[in-house]
C-alpha cells in the first residue's frame, strides 16, 4: 500500500468514526495492520535526496467539545501535517500564506542557515499576506522536532506541526512501530484577549488558589506557610498563567473525549515521539501501568532511562519506547497545574479504552522556589548525590563546594563577589579559562546586589542547580520521574572548556505580568553580542517563580548536568524557579539568532533576545548606533568583544 492510498483509507476511517475533520491524517486512529512508521505528508517532489513540500497557511473553522472556533492551520489541520525527512536530504518547503496577515515557519531544533530559521524581523522579513516563501536547507541531523509560527499569536491558534527526521544509518534502539504524539493547548478566546486578561489581573485564570475553606479543611499549606507567602505578596498556587479555565488540552489535535488513539499488535515495541507544541502548558506524561524507556530528548539520543513519568517543557521533544501487553493503556498528559488533562489511548484493538486516572491535586510552590531555603541546603546536596549516582566527579565537587559554603557561612562573601562581577562570574583557578570545568554543575550562589529593578518582583536569595529535582508537583507519589541529571548522551564527547561566560537572569513581575531578561524587555535591550568561534558558557538564573523553557535558535546548547563527557545536547531547557544552570554553546553560526522563553506570552512581552553572532571585525558601528540610539549596552564594551 502506498502512502497516498493509506491516507485516503485513514481519512475514510476517520469520517466513519466521527472524528474531527481538522485532525491530520497521520494523527487519526492508527490501524494495527497499517504502516509501522507514521506516514508524513506526501512530498510534492521526492528524488535523489531532494524532498519538497507545499504547505498552505490558512484560517480554518474547527470544533470540539460542542464549541467552534477559528484556527490558523497548516494544510487545514491542527496540528499541521507530519513532515518527514531522512538525514542527508535537501529540504525545500514552499509555504503559501493565504492569510491577510504576515506568517512565518520556524524549524524548531534544526541547525540551518540563518536566513532559513524563520523568525520575522530577525532572520527574514516574514512571509507577507497572500504570498509564498520557499525554505531550502540541508537536513544534517536526525530526531523528533517540530515547527511553528513565530508571528503574533498564530502558534496559540494552531499553527504548529511535528517534524521527524530518520537517521541515515540504523537506529540505536529497536522498536517495531512509532507514533508521534503532539501535545498542545487550545483556547476559544482570542489570544490577545487572553493576554489582556492577564495584564488586567495576573491570576485571572487561576481557579485553584488557596481559599478559607481549603485552609480550614487543611488542604495544601498551613496558615503559617500561607502568611509567609502573603507577606511576600507571592502566590504559591501560581503554577500556570493560563489554565483549564480556558484551555482545552489537546493530544494530536483531539480533546480528551474521546481522545486520540493508536493501535499496536501485542508484543510490539512502540516508540512514542512526544512533542510539546503548547503555547503555555508544561505536561507531565505517563502511561499508567506501562514503564517508559526514554531514548531521545530534544532530537538527541540519550542512554536509555526507564521511568514512569516525565515532565515535558514547552517546545521540548521526548522519545520513549514502551512494550505494551495485550490491553489498552491511557496516554495521560496532565498540565503542571492539574487544571485538566490531555488524553489518548494505546490499544491492541480499535474501540478499547483504559481507565483515565484521577487528576492529582494542584501543587504548591515552596520556599525553595523563592531561593529562600538556607537550612536545607546541605540536605539538598545530599539528595542530589542520591539522585544522580552517575554524576561525574567534577559535578559532585561543584556541589560539595556549594555545601561547604553553606555550612561555613562563607557563602555570603563568595556569592556577593561572584555576582558583583556584574553578570560575568569567574571561579578562580579551576581551568585555563578561569572557568569551572566543562560539564560540571554550577555552584550554589547567593544572589548579587542587582535585583533587576521594578520589572522583577523578587530576586531569590540564593540560586542553585535544580537539574536533579523533578519539579513542582512531581516525585512525591512513589513514581519514578525523569530528571535532567538522568540524561546522558549516547556517545561521550570531550568537551572543550568555555572561553567566556555570560550570565542572564530571567526576570518578571507577576503582579503586573511583566517579563524580561535582566529586568529588561526585548525592546529595551535587544541584543546579546556573541563572537563567532568562541565557546560560550551560558548561565541562566531564574529570578522568578515560574518555570521558563528557554530556547536558543541555530546552535545547540550542551546542558551541564554533571555528566561530564556525556552531557546532553538540547535546543530548549526548562529553568526552574530560583534555579541556576549553565549550558555550553559552540558559537559556530553567524548572524542573528532568536533566544527566548518558549512561553508564548512571556516571549511576546519581552523575555526575548537576539543572540547576535559576529566576527569581531564585522560589528557595524552605524547599524549598532541605529539600534541603540541611547548608547550601546554593556556587552559591547567588553574587551574581548572590542578586540579586532
Amino acid at each position, binding site marked *: 500500500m502506498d502512502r497516498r492510498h493509506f491516507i485516503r483509507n485513514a481519512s475514510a476511517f476517520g469520517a466513519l468514526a466521527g472524528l474531527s475533520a481538522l485532525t491530520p491524517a497521520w494523527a487519526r486512529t492508527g490501524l494495527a495492520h497499517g504502516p509501522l512508521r507514521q506516514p508524513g505528508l506526501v512530498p510534492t517532489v521526492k528524488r535523489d535526496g531532494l524532498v519538497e513540500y507545499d504547505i498552505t497557511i490558512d484560517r480554518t473553522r474547527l470544533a470540539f467539545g460542542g464549541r467552534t472556533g477559528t484556527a490558523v492551520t497548516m494544510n487545514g489541520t491542527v496540528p499541521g501535517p507530519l513532515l518527514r525527512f531522512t538525514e542527508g536530504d535537501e529540504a525545500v518547503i514552499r509555504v503559501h500564506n493565504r492569510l491577510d496577515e504576515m506568517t512565518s515557519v520556524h524549524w524548531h531544533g534544526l541547525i540551518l542557515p540563518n536566513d532559513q530559521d524563520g*523568525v520575522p524581523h530577525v532572520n527574514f522579513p516574514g512571509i507577507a499576506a497572500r504570498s509564498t516563501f520557499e525554505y531550502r536547507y540541508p537536513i544534517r541531523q536526525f530526531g523528533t522536532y517540530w515547527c511553528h509560527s513565530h508571528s503574533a499569536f498564530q502558534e496559540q491558534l494552531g499553527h504548529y506541526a511535528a517534524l521527524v527526521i530518520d537517521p541515515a544509518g540504523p537506529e540505536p534502539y529497536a522498536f517495531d512501530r512509532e507514533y508521534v504524539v503532539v501535545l498542545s493547548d487550545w483556547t476559544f478566546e482570542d489570544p490577545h484577549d487572553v493576554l489582556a486578561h492577564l495584564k488586567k489581573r495576573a491570576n485571572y485564570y487561576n481557579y485553584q488558589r488557596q481559599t478559607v475553606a481549603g485552609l480550614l479543611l487543611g488542604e495544601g499549606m498551613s496558615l503559617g506557610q500561607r502568611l509567609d507567602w502573603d507577606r511576600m505578596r507571592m502566590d504559591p498556587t501560581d503554577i500556570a498563567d493560563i489554565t483549564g479555565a480556558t484551555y482545552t488540552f489537546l493530544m494530536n489535535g483531539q480533546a480528551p473525549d474521546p481522545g486520540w488513539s493508536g493501535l499496536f499488535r501485542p508484543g510490539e515495541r512502540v516508540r512514542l515521539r512526544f512533542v510539546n507544541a503548547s503555547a503555555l502548558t508544561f505536561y507531565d506524561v505517563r502511561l499508567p501501568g506501562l514503564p517508559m524507556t526514554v531514548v531521545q530528548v530534544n532530537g538527541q539520543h540519550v542512554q536509555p532511562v526507564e521511568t514512569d513519568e516525565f515532565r515535558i517543557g514547552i517546545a521540548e521533544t521526548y522519545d520513549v519506547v514502551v512494550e505494551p501487553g495485550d490491553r489498552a493503556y491511557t496516554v495521560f498528559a496532565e498540565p503542571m497545574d492539574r487544571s485538566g488533562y490531555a488524553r489518548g489511548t494505546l490499544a491492541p484493538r480499535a474501540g478499547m479504552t483504559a481507565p483515565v486516572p484521577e487528576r492529582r491535586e494542584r501543587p504548591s510552590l515552596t520556599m525553595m522556589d523563592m531561593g529562600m531555603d538556607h537550612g536545607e541546603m546541605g540536605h539538598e546536596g545530599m539528595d542530589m548525590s542520591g539522585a544522580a549516582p552517575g554524576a561525574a566527579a567534577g559535578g559532585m565537587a561543584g556541589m560539595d563546594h556549594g555545601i561547604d559554603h553553606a555550612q561555613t557561612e562563607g557563602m555570603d562573601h563568595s556569592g556577593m563577589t561572584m555576582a558583583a562581577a556584574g553578570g560575568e562570574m569567574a571561579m578562580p583557578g579551576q581551568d585555563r579559562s578561569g572557568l569551572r570545568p566543562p560539564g560540571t554543575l554550577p555552584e550554589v550562589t547567593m544572589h548579587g546586589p542587582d535585583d533587576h529593578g521594578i520589572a522583577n518582583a523578587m530576586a531569590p536569595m540564593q540560586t542553585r542547580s535544580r537539574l536533579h529535582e523533578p519539579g513542582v508537583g512531581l516525585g512525591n507519589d512513589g513514581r519514578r520521574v525523569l530528571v535532567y541529571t538522568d540524561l546522558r548522551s549516547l556517545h561521550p564527547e570531550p568537551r572543550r572548556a568555555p572561553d567566556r561566560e555570560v550570565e542572564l537572569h530571567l526576570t518578571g513581575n507577576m503582579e503586573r505580568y511583566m517579563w524580561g531578561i535582566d529586568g529588561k524587555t526585548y525592546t529595551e535591550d535587544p541584543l546579546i553580542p556573541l563572537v563567532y568561534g568562541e565557546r560560550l558558557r551560558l548561565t541562566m538564573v531564574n529570578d522568578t517563580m515560574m518555570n521558563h523553557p528557554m530556547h536558543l535558535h541555530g546552535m545547540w546548547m550542551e546542558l551541564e548536568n554533571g555528566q561530564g563527557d556525556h552531557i546532553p545536547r538540547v535546543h530548549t531547557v526548562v529553568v526552574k524557579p530560583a534555579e541556576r544552570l549553565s549550558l555550553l554553546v559552540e558559537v559556530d553560526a553567524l548572524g542573528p539568532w532568536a533566544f527566548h522563553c518558549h512561553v508564548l506570552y512571556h516571549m511576546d512581552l519581552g523575555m526575548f533576545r537576539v543572540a547576535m553572532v559576529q566576527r569581531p571585525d564585522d560589528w557595524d558601528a552605524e547599524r549598532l548606533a541605529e539600534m541603540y540610539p541611547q548608547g550601546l549596552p554593556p556587552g559591547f564594551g567588553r574587551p574581548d568583544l572590542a578586540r579586532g
Partner: protein
Amino acid sequence: MLRSLALALLALAASAPVTAQDDPPPFPEYPDFRPGAVAAADRDLYSLALLDIFEVAPAASGVPARLEGFYRIGTDYNRLFVRAEGEGLISEAEGEAEVQALYSRLVTEYFEAQAGVRLDTEFGEGGLRARPQLAVGLEGLAPYFFEVEPFLFLSYKGDLSARFEGSYDLLITQRLVLQPEAEVTVALQEVEDWGVGTGLNAVEAGLRLRYEVEREVAPYVGFSVLQRFGGAADFARAEGEPTSEGLFVVGVRLWR
C-alpha cells in the same frame, strides 16, 4: 585570543557533529532586520475599567446609591487613571460626586505613585457646585496582599486633607470573595462649606460578599457603616445628615 579562536575553529571543523552554514553573510542585509520589533507587546497599551462599587441600600429612606470605580490605560510604567465615585439618594435626586484624573508611574515592584487633579461636586436642589483640588498619592499592594491607597489633597484655597483606603480580598471559595474595606479621612483645616472638620473626619467600613459568576461580573451583598467625628459630625448634623449610619447594600462589581 585569536590563536585560541583559530584553534577552536579547527577543533570545530574536525569534530563538530552538526554545525551551521559555512559562509553566511556577516550582517543581515534585508531591510527589515529590526531587533526589538518582534516582542512589541511590551510596548502596547493595556487598559482596565473597574466598577468596584455599584450599589443601592434598598431599605434605607431615600434609597442611598453609590458607585466607585476607575479607568486606567497605559504601559507597564506610565498610566493615566480616571477615578470616579459618587453617592446620593435616588428618591431625592441629590448627592455628591468626585472625579480624579491622575498620572500614574510605577515606582516600586508593587506601588504606583499618582498625581493629578480632583474635582468635588455636590448636586441637588441648590444646583451644582464644585471645588478643584490637587491630589497626590500611592496605589498598590502592601505585604499580605492588602490593597492600599494613601492620598493627600490640597484644595485651591490651600486646605490640606488626607484619605487612606484599604481593602482585602478573602477567598471563601474560588468564586465567593469576602471583601472588607476601610476608608479614613482627616483634614488639617476646617472647610465648613464642604462639611470638613479639623482632624479625624470620618471612618467608613464595608464588608461585601461577592460571587464571581465570571471574573468580570460579580453580584454582591454587604454591609456598610459610616461614623463621622468632631467638626465633620457637627456640620453633618446641621445639614440634617446622619453622623453615623449602617446600611445593607446590594450591588454588582463589574470590570472589563
